[in-house]
């Protein structure tokens, strides 16, 4: 392995360091106080008392989320000060300020049609191929082969899962008092996406649904083959849409008991499948978490692969697929000898245990490695990518002030109930991006010299994944950094029964970051996602239309720009957050 392309390996970790530095700097700049909050009189957001943005008026100090709120207050403090709310029920979080939004859009467009296009022409095959084999480090292979370590971590996750169920079902049903909603929808869901970037599908390795189902069904199931007609990820796509619907349409995120029931429903599906079907069929075909993270994991900076193709070629036993007394055959029906993509690999490490030649490797790699190569594009995966793009945007959209207005507008116009209006708008939001994409692919087809439409549609869809992934992160960074610290308080009193297990029940932890710091992180994430999307589009175009790659690429560039600008626009919108909620 040459040393030169190592920069591509370092890029993910440099980004991580940059993100952490941004949070730490912001923290230090605000005095680093853990507790002590005040309420912004303008937007009713809870802020740290250490913030720089503050004003004195009439002997009182007012603290602001950002200079925008301060500027607004300073215009007429005499009128605004007496109306300052004391304990808000709901607050509005300001979105990106106009200058940041405009700068972001300009940057995105310049990148797309200018700099990147020039740089991209040189090609860059070497960097993409660089790898660093973690199993060469001492202890790593032994850890991967250890069953005790794996089962212990699975048991820990499973007990945490049971804890959430108990809290959700029997704890106080106010979402601010119960740990279940916060831990599930803010910490876990945001943390999961973040984890994928750096550790791939490590969640699947310790997944409590699979662990509990597997322990219950171990060796007691029917081992039927998963029905042939359902051997695609359409079931998972449908489940993902259903989850988004109950999450936003039915407000499950704010109801502890409903959160627990959703988690139990997933457990029932996982356990039912474990009893009926062979290996971990559910993980491969049915699990929405597994499939969503599977697509995202194509971007991940970690992979498990066979080390030496020659060793595999001479292997007669193929224990990695068939299983042996050392471990199970690949639970998701992958054959490590030919596995080139992360999509269906759950990093369960069974193949590390079964391979008699120790020919499996856990490697660091550049981001987006699976997206930039030919791969094995499938229509169902492409559609899940589009659904992900649409639904992550939709998620943000429902929190803007415009959304309730649209829903009630439709309710009034059609004379339908909330659920119907919500469902109609959700369908619309699902259809619009897909329709836009379909039209742009048509334009690309005209310039790609006779490639079939379906093939282009499927192949280019993967290029949109980085945008979806990074917008997802930008959106969830808000939840995670602003609301995540409440976990400190809830950990002491998870059921809202007045306990104080860790002595932190009375804390009122401030957000981890100020609004201005958050904006910088969000902008950074959207631009990183856009750059990777451009890169993947570029590589796909070069493969699909080697002759006129640039002109074939133009419609796709337009689509990445459109989606990135939409992401920025969403981040610019004020977000309505329930204080009592999460």
């Amino acid at each position, binding site marked *: 392995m040459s040393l030169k392309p190592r920069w591509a390996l370092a890029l993910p970790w440099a980004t991580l360091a940059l993100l952490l530095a941004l949070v730490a700097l912001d923290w230090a700049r605000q005095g680093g106080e853990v507790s002590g909050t005040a309420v912004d009189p303008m937007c009713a957001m809870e802020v740290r008392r250490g913030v720089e943005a503050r004003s004195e008026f009439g002997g009182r100090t007012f603290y602001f989320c950002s200079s925008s709120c301060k500027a607004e207050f300073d215009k007429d403090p005499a009128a605004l000060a007496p109306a300052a709310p*004391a*304990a808000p029920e709901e607050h509005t979080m300001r979105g990106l300020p106009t200058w940041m939004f405009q700068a972001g859009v300009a940057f995105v467009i310049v990148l797309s049609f200018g700099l990147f296009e020039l740089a991209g022409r040189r090609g860059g095959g070497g960097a993409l191929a660089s790898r660093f084999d973690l199993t060469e480090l001492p202890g790593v292979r032994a850890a991967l082969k250890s069953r005790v370590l794996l089962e212990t971590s699975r048991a820990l996750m499973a007990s945490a899962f049971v804890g959430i169920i108990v809290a959700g*079902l029997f704890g106080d*049903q*106010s979402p601010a008092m119960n740990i279940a909603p916060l831990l599930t929808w803010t910490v876990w869901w945001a943390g999961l996406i973040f984890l994928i970037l750096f550790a791939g599908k490590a969640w699947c390795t310790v997944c409590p649904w699979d662990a509990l189902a597997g322990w219950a069904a171990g060796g007691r199931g*029917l081992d039927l083959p998963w029905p042939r007609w359902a051997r695609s990820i359409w079931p998972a796509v449908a489940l993902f849409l259903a989850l988004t619907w109950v999450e936003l349409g039915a407000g499950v995120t704010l*109801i502890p*008991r409903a959160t627990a029931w959703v988690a139990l429903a997933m457990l*029932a599906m996982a356990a039912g499948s474990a009893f009926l079907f062979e290996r971990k069929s559910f993980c491969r075909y049915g699990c929405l978490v597994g499939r969503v993270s599977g697509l995202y994991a194509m971007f991940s900076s970690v992979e498990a692969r066979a080390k030496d193709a020659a060793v595999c070629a001479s292997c007669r036993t193929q224990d990695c697929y068939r299983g042996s007394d050392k471990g199970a055959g690949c639970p998701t029906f992958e054959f490590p000898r030919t596995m080139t993509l992360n999509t269906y690999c759950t990093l369960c490490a069974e193949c590390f245990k079964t391979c008699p030649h120790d020919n499996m490797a856990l490697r660091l790699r550049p981001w987006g490695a699976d997206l930039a190569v030919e791969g094995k594009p499938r229509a169902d995966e492409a559609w899940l990518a589009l659904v992900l793009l649409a639904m992550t945007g939709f998620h943000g959209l429902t929190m803007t002030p415009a959304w309730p207005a649209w829903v009630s507008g439709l309710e009034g116009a059609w004379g339908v109930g909330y659920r119907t209006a919500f469902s109609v708008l959700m369908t619309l939001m699902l259809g619009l991006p897909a329709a836009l994409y379909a039209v742009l692919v048509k334009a690309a087809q005209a310039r790609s010299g006779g490639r079939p439409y379906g093939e282009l549609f499927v192949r280019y869809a993967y290029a949109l994944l980085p945008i979806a992934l990074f917008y997802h992160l930008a959106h969830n960074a808000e939840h995670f950094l602003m609301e995540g610290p409440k976990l400190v308080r809830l950990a002491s009193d998870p059921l809202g029964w007045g306990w104080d297990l860790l002595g932190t029940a009375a804390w009122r932890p401030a957000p981890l970051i100020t609004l201005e710091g958050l904006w910088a992180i969000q902008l950074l994430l959207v631009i990183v996602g856009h750059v990777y999307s451009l890169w993947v589009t570029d590589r796909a175009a070069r493969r699909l239309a080697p002759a006129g790659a640039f002109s074939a690429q133009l419609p796709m560039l337009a689509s990445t720009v459109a989606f990135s600008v939409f992401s920025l626009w969403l981040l610019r919108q004020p977000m309505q957050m329930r204080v009592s909620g999460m």
Partner: protein
Amino acid sequence: MKYWWARRAVQLAILGAILMAPVVARYEHYMSARSYEKMEKSFEGKAVGRWLKTAEAGLGLGLRWEEGGVEGRRPRKRLIARARHLYGSAWSARVFGVSLTDLLAGAESAASSRGLRTALLTGLAVPLLATLLLGRVYCAWVCPMGLLSALARQLRKLLVFLELKPLSVELSRADKYAVLAMGLLAALLTGLPLLHHLYPPALVGRESHALFQAWFDRAEADLFGVPWQALGAGTLFLGLLVILEAAVAPGFWCRALCPGGALYSLLGRFRLVRVARVKAACIDCLLCDKVCPMGLSPMTDRTGMECDNCLACLDACPTDALKVRVSAKAVAPLAALILMAAPAAAHHILGIPHYAYEKEWPQAPVLKLVEKVGEWEIQLTGYPGRPKPGVRADVTVYAWEPESGRVYEGEMRLEAAEVRALAGPRTFYGPELSRPNGTLQKFALVYPRDGNYELTLHLRAGGVASTLRFPIVVGDPPSPWKGLGLGAGAFGLFFVVVRAVRIKKARREARGVA
């Protein structure tokens, strides 16, 4: 199969009577209190209303709908008279004016009170004579445990089908005499009747009374759910018997442990009607031994005093070698049995007093919730404490400083939201300004349906805006245990089916290979 059909028909009719007796009693009470029409209206469309209608349909069979010469009016007096023909339970009852007391009840009552009352004797007369003549016939034809045992036998077949191999533990038949002796001795020494706690017919009757009593009582307070919580240890014990008979020891209760069975066996020792075998016709096929629910051997005439004359062996015999033989000596006592069936007052009968149907009873309790904000104490009082949906409920707030005795006189707003399972809380009331009433602040609201609610109170006490939340339960909200229980049950069933399929598949494959 003719005896099987006859036995099941009799058993089901008697079980139906035991279960319906509390409903009939309640019907009779409403009729006597002249409040049936009112109840009928308020129970419209509810299960309790259907129960009462069922009772009325049964009681009104063949009656002309006419009273006091008015065509179409409910024949109240005649319905009441008929309703009084079914009182009590299997432990002690009055049916068509005849007092019937279980022999075990009589024995235990006599032992614990150390005396024999005449009233008790009249109730015992019919069962006693029947037992002397026919033996343990009560066990096979009357006792509800006969049906439960049959159910357990079917469950046992299901278990075998599901590959859950049931055990076959056998207990000694003599054990039940020890249970009876110890129970009666305990009653004699301590005066405490204990045996009725483990006597299936008594338990069925008592649980049915408890269930219906709670059901109707709650319905009178506009709570219409099935009050499963009214069922207690008796149901648990019966369920346990069924499970044990199915999974561990077939028929063990009636054969080996039932104190009632022991008493009936003893009394029926010299019965005049019994199953007998025509030796010449018997082909020694063993079919009768196989079907005997008591585990006896009719084929070798070894039935003795344990036989309950269920006649299953007669059904099973392919050559009709088994017969019911009545000895001539039985005729006179049989005639006496019929003659003795005279009206008499039973010594104790389960029932309910019929008073107060027009009164508000039970009184609705009041709910009081207290919160502290700094020096302030805020009391929220709800009337009724467990409000009913669709009916006005009052909420009164009293806020004061206990230190200074100062009462809060500022503004106060109340908001009420329904806490829903798969949706956000839905506010249906307020924020509404209170109506001050002296030192109290009053609100009136109507909850839309059964469920969990949250009241949110906004006030500015001591210059600080405070938001207080109070949980309220309206009617009968569903509990998560129900869902968990159903889910776990469904999953358990799923697991057992998967297991059975696996075992059967493996067996088929093994057979295919061999």
